[in-house]
């Protein structure tokens, strides 16, 4: 099983600042099938990024992602109050999918 580690656990920032979230895989993702999700309280997760760096339809361009192999990053610029949420990474490179433990972003 590929284990995903996310850091930091919690990020407390002010509006307008930039958030940088990290996701590290225990093995190389050969196809870079790494996705990022946003989850707000009481809601289902929402896909933000797929294939490590591709924004999903309708996602604001304040959200960008990069990385390959084992190290991946989600960056959120010009933070707004509505960006307060849990952010999860997920790999589907392996047939056994796994999620990271999440990073909580507080604005």
């Amino acid at each position: 099983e590929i284990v995903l580690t996310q850091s930091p656990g919690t990020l407390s920032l002010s509006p307008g600042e930039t958030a940088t979230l990290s996701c590290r895989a225990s093995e190389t993702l050969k196809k870079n099938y790494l996705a990022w999700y946003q989850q707000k309280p009481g809601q289902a997760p929402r896909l933000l990024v797929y294939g490590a760096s591709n924004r999903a339809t309708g996602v604001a361009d304040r959200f960008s992602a990069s990385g390959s192999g084992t190290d991946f990053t989600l960056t959120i610029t010009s933070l707004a109050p509505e960006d307060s949420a849990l952010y999860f990474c997920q790999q589907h490179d392996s047939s056994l999918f796994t999620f990271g433990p999440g990073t909580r972003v507080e604005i």
Partner: protein
Amino acid sequence: EVQLVESGGGVVEPGGSLRLSCSASGFNFRTFSMNWVRQAPGRALEWIATVGLTPNYKTYRDSLKDRFSISRDDARNLVFLQINSLREDDSGKYYCTKDFGSVWGQGILVTVAS
């Protein structure tokens, strides 16, 4: 509009069984793999199982494969999750997702308690 709607959750006693259903609409269901993911209160997401395009392609989280069974009915655009020998730590919200997770249902709550 692509939509996934889960049903079949509820309160069940430890040792009991439950069959969750997910009704899909708005896309060509038979051409996509489908998954179940769960989340205990305040906890991270946990992938449970995937059913592929062919009836026999199914993968499971190792720790759950003895009690969980995923299946699909392409004629009715449904995906199922059969859960047996339920335990209290199976409690949580269960989500149906399309392909790797591009679309999620709203989730259905399962509570295992005596």
